[in-house]
């Protein structure tokens, strides 16, 4: 029972990440009709916002101690972060909370990245074939990740969660389990809550603001909305920015779970496409539903009990589910008719 509960938590946590990435991807599909292969790269850029901030805050005052030598024969360098030097314990607190603080950096940066990407590149590809969109955004993804690699190297860079959130919570106790049976890392709980909040915010934004209403109308019938004299293109540009921010935030908050490296975007790319397609192209609710569904199924498929009956099932479960769902429901779980079918 405790094992099931833990796997459910794992699934929700994974699902949160899948849903966040897929949400932006499907938003871009639904509004702009663009297949964005650079979406994984946006996730990766978000993660590197966190890396940059902690690197920036971690800038160190270097004093060279000539009396001591390193093993490789250079004088020993004594390093203290400027921020600690200046602000004392407040500085230490900021260093500790660099990942959550990175959200503040990631929002403007990712918005800007999104706007530049859309205005500079994507908008020229609205009317082009999907194959062209794939090629150009894939090229962009490679360029972005190679630039990050040139700057930060290829190895993962650890981004610890804040000290107070780095342990694990004994949540089983509250639910009547024995102590120490259902423990779960604080940060993963934070991540799940964060994913839920962001998803809710995006839905609320589209549901309850006039801006969102116009965007939804535009998703349903772009031409008609255009005929009403509403500048739908500019709104779609902003939608692209929002999608970039959502992907970026997913990346920022994921860094304590998965030490970021330049290639992490590609690792998530295929998966996020599968999630979007299973959910139904252009369906926001579908993306969220499919994200959680696949996350949970993946978790359960990895259990020893199941693997011993079906070896290797955990490696293919996502794809297997995608195949079954697409054959049973041609347009995905909540897909609308006519989207991306030609």
């Amino acid at each position, binding site marked *: 029972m405790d*094992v099931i509960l833990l796997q459910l938590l794992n699934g929700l946590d994974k699902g949160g990440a899948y849903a966040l990435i897929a949400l932006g991807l499907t938003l871009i599909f639904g509004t702009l009709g663009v297949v964005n292969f650079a979406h994984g790269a946006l996730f990766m850029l978000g993660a590197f916002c966190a890396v940059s901030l902690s690197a920036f805050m971690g800038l160190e005052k270097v004093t060279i101690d000539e009396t001591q030598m390193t093993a490789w024969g250079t004088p020993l360098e004594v390093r203290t972060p400027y921020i600690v030097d200046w602000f004392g314990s407040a500085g230490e607190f900021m260093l500790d909370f660099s990942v959550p603080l990175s959200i503040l950096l990631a929002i403007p940066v990712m918005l800007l990245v999104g706007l530049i990407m859309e205005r500079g590149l994507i908008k020229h590809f609205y009317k082009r074939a999907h194959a062209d969109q794939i090629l150009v955004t894939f090229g962009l993804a490679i360029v972005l990740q190679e630039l990050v690699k040139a700057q930060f190297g290829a190895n*993962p860079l650890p981004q610890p969660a804040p000290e107070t959130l780095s342990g694990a919570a004994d949540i089983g106790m509250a639910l009547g389990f024995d102590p120490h049976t259902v423990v779960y890392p604080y940060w993963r709980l934070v991540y799940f809550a964060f994913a839920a909040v962001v998803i809710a915010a995006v839905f609320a934004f589209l549901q309850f603001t006039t801006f969102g209403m116009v965007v939804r109308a535009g998703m349903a019938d772009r031409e008609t909305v255009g005929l009403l004299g509403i500048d739908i293109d500019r709104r779609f540009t902003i939608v692209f920015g929002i999608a970039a921010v959502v992907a970026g935030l997913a990346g920022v908050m994921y860094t304590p779970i998965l030490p970021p490296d330049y290639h992490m975007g590609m690792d998530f790319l295929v998966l996020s496409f599968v999630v979007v397609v299973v959910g139904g192209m252009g369906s926001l609710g579908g993306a969220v539903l499919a994200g959680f569904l696949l996350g949970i199924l993946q978790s359960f498929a990895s259990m020893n009990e199941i693997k011993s009956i079906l070896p290797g099932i*955990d490696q293919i479960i996502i794809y297997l589910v995608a195949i079954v769902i697409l054959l049973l429901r041609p347009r995905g779980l909540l897909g609308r008719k006519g989207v991306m079918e030609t």
Partner: protein
Amino acid sequence: MSTFSINRRGLLKGSAALGAGIAAPTIFPSYAWAASYTNEPTGSSVTLGFNVPQTGAYADEGADELRAYQLAVKHLNGEGDGGMLSTFSSKVLKGNGILGKKVEYVTGDTQTKSDAARASAKRMIQKDGAIMITGGSSSGVAIAVQGLCQEEGVIFMAGLTHSNDTTGKDCRANGFRHFFNTEMSGAALAPVLKNAYGTDRIAYHLTADYTWGWSQEGSIKKYTEQLGWQTAAAVRTPLGAGDFSQYLTPVLNSGADVLVLNHYGKDMVNSLTQAVQFGMRDKQVNGKDFAIVVPLYSRLMAQGAGENVKGIFGSTNWHWSLQDEGSKAFVKSFGQEYGFPPSQAAHTTYCQAILYADAVERAGSFRPSAVGAALEDFEFDGLGNGPTLYRGFDHQCFKDVLVVKGKENPTSKFDVLEVVEVTPRAQVEYGTDLLGCNKGPFNDGA
């Protein structure tokens, strides 16, 4: 070659069949047939091929390997401070290149994919005339390139490859490995684990689901079960899983009190980071402190796991903090060139380049069979791992193995591991029948 005559006949027939457009081989100048082995160096220089991962997950290790090779080339050509040449027990290298020929090199990107690695190795052999191929950062690639070098008739000096198979069931006469393997890791780690954790332990293995992972799991199981440990479960995880939470949570209540992570590279960084997040380093099970073991450590990768490596045991081929003369000379030489200490990948590849050059010098020829014979059963010292034997039977180096632990109070970002035990060579040696190597004859190619 019992089929030589058939070959010759068929060959003429075949080439005639290729038809117009290609001249028949008879018009070729005869010197094309005179080369007695692949890429025999005829000029004043000799070309080595450095095949390292430049893209993909191991790009940083590949970059470090390349740095070490460039340093070795400098030293071989008599530039720089000579590094380990001065501490190496064999003194035939004079700093005038190899056999008086200046050492030049070409590079290739393995991408940590067998196909890409073979393609770039072929380019270096077929186009650039490389006489020897070396490098790599995974066993799949090492075995693939080793097989290629056997076919092409050049020597392969393996880089970072830890699977038993490289010098076990997939060994080749033209291939040589300086790095240690999972069998040695198991043999070296077991006594240390016994001292630290006792003999009454239950281990839970998470294993990367491919050849190296299985090999590592098998070795650790074998040696820990000899200690009296039990194995609760051994679970296979997909390569590049990213999030390992679904494999980690079953560990919590399995009754196991040791978690063995048979992962390498990014998988190791991720699974270790996440295991620590699940509180596994501070946990108590069966009245004992829960322990995590990472059988194969890489310092470059351990940096990616940050603070999570603290207090966690593993094994490694070499570490820059070693205090023997060879290691000190190498660290100094490398550090002054690049400003930071070398990794074990850099060390093993540097050694391989030096060992190759030395063998050529001693053999007096670049001919692969002659060089190979010079390397076989070669005893040497002064390259950082103590007295070492290049065993002739399977072309595996036997030397001391380091058991390391994540350092509690690192003084710099390079200082993440501390050496807790140098397991002497005698303890990690194994018989020739254990891994079943059948390497076949040398191939000189052409």
